[in-house]
């Protein structure tokens, strides 16, 4: 059944590419610069598609958009006239109006009565703090667990970690967040209530002082732990699978035959080759986590883009929702492009 394929992965050579390898690389595909350029162009094409979808999606909204937008707000006649021009009239006129500058909507958010991009700007940093920390933590722990589980396949550690990660993989993340919240913020039974119930700062602490940083960290802990746990599961499952894949390769037998210790075989040979799928996944995920943090930020009242989305749904605050949708899509597209370029830089075979 097992047919041994001839194209066994070459053993990792010295870090600096020799002249022979470099020549082969050029023959196999285009240079990295050209590839990156092409990939970016495709990404821009996708962005245009998203912008068009964004327009038509929101124009399918039932009812009079102007009435929806101005309901319960103080709007003078000049503004109404400008809005009518933007929202009513032939579809084509609206589209050209929109397409001229989709990123600098002069239309205010219905809820905040501020330009939408200003509202979004205020909420970007909490999300970056949350998602960034969670990404770093889930990457480190996910990869470590995956490597160890894959390397010692069938061991007790492998069985337990696979069971736990599969379980975490099936958990709705906001439910996990609520469970942690009820356990460590409300305090159930013997569990102490040691963490704040939500938000980013306590009201009575200056966020720039040392005590304020500590306070923010305490607020960050639970939402960050929730996100990290959920994504760690995915990374460790993928890493385990690719370590298993590498484990049966001939070059590891060669490395052992050279007399390398098991630890060195793993660290120097197996892991670097197995990292590729996980790296791709991690970069791809960054874009998705930003939009996926909607529920977590809602549960923990974390003042980021996700919580903003939740508020925008409630209205519905259409201009804000439209801008957020565009932003999230562009984040995913950008992380896609970056993932492809990083992988191409690491592994020239993917460039064809």
């Amino acid at each position, binding site marked *: *059944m097992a047919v041994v394929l001839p194209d066994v992965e070459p053993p990792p050579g010295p870090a600096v590419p020799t002249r022979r390898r470099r020549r082969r690389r050029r023959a196999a595909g285009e240079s990295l610069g050209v590839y990156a350029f092409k990939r970016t162009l495709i990404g821009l094409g*996708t962005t245009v*598609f*998203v912008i068009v*979808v964004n327009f038509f*999606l*929101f124009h*399918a*909204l*039932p009812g009079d958009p102007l009435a929806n937008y101005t309901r319960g707000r103080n709007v003078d006649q000049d503004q109404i006239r400008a809005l009518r021009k933007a929202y009513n009239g032939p579809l084509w006129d609206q589209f050209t109006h929109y397409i001229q500058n989709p990123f600098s909507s002069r239309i205010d958010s219905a809820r905040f009565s501020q330009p939408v991009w200003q509202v979004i700007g205020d909420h970007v940093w909490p999300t970056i703090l949350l998602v960034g920390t969670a990404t770093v933590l889930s990457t480190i722990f996910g990869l470590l667990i995956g490597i160890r589980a894959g390397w010692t396949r069938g061991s007790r550690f492998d069985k337990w970690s696979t069971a736990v990660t*599969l*379980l975490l*993989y*099936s*958990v*709705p993340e*906001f*439910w*996990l967040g*609520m*469970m942690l*919240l*009820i*356990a460590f*913020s*409300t*305090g*159930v039974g013997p569990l102490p209530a040691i963490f704040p*119930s939500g938000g980013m700062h306590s009201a009575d602490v200056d966020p720039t002082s040392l005590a304020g940083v500590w306070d923010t960290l305490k607020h960050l802990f639970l939402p960050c732990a929730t996100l990290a746990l959920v994504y760690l599961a995915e990374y460790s499952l993928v890493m385990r699978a690719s370590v*298993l894949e590498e484990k049966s390769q001939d070059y590891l037998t060669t490395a052992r035959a050279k007399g390398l210790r098991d630890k060195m075989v793993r660290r120097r040979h197996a892991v670097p080759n197995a990292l590729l799928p996980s790296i791709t996944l991690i970069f791809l995920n960054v*874009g*998705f986590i930003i*939009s*996926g943090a*909607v*529920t977590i930020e*809602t*549960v923990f009242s974390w003042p980021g883009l996700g919580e903003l*989305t*939740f508020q925008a*749904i*409630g209205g*519905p605050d259409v201009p804000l*929702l439209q801008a*957020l*949708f565009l932003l*999230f*899509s562009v*984040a*995913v*597209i950008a992380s*896609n492009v970056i993932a492809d370029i990083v992988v191409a830089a690491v592994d020239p075979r993917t460039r064809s």
Partner: protein
Amino acid sequence: MTDIGVPVLRSSRSIAWARRRAAWSRGWAIFRRQRSGVVGVAILVIFVVVAFAAPFIWPASDLDISRATGPILAPPSWSYPFGTDNAGRSVLTLVAWGTRVSLLVGVAATAISMIIGTLVGIASGHYKGLIGASLERLTDWFLVIPFLPLAVVLATILGATLQNVIIVIGITSWPSTARIVRAQTLSVEARPYLERARALGAGDWHQMRRHVLPNVMPLVLANTTLTVAVAILSETTLAFLGLGPSDKVSWGSILEDVFNGAGISQGAWWWLLPPGLCVVVVVLAFTLVGRALEVVVDPRMRGR
């Protein structure tokens, strides 16, 4: 493996059926050997039974807030095994009824996503020119639109009814299926027997229906169970964000009630734990079944 003891054969059709039956029983034998897959099936059977039995055991009137009789936010007791919510309804009744909506949405949305994904995947793999290229582009584009924001926007636009939630999840989750099906279609179409079919004058429709589709179906089936798991998680998320049907109880809507009804600050863990646990167990069961089916479909996965 080769001799399957076929009885007297008359037509090519009966040969095909006998072979298909043999393939299914072989697949079932492989599936049965995987304990986790069997456990997954058992769990799903239990939940399906609960979904069908719920109206007969717990009358629908028990879900009515105005007619609830229990104490408010009572911890588990003999008369209320899972405790009560903030309106005095039994959490057990809510969860049992929630099974119906969650399973229905999961299965129905997956059906939509599978049909679109299979059609687009086969067509984009089969047609070479403009049609294939544009379908492939479309798949790639849909793949990068982040699911949650798109689903949120669609649900806001269409309105929150059961039917719309199914449609929203269905039309946002097809691209990954389409991509898998397309890859398989390309590999099937490269095989000699399709060249033979073409040489004998088979049209596009005949090729796709009689030759490609049967070869793609096992893969779609394995993918289906994984998609159901994702669809159930999506339904829970949408309902939690208040975008589910307001007149139906689902596991997600119970969690929404816990969150909005101050269940967390009251420490009502009995209200929060069961619906989430049900989601986890059902999603896990679908994942286990899906992984077991993947092993059946893909011989390379065996022994992992």
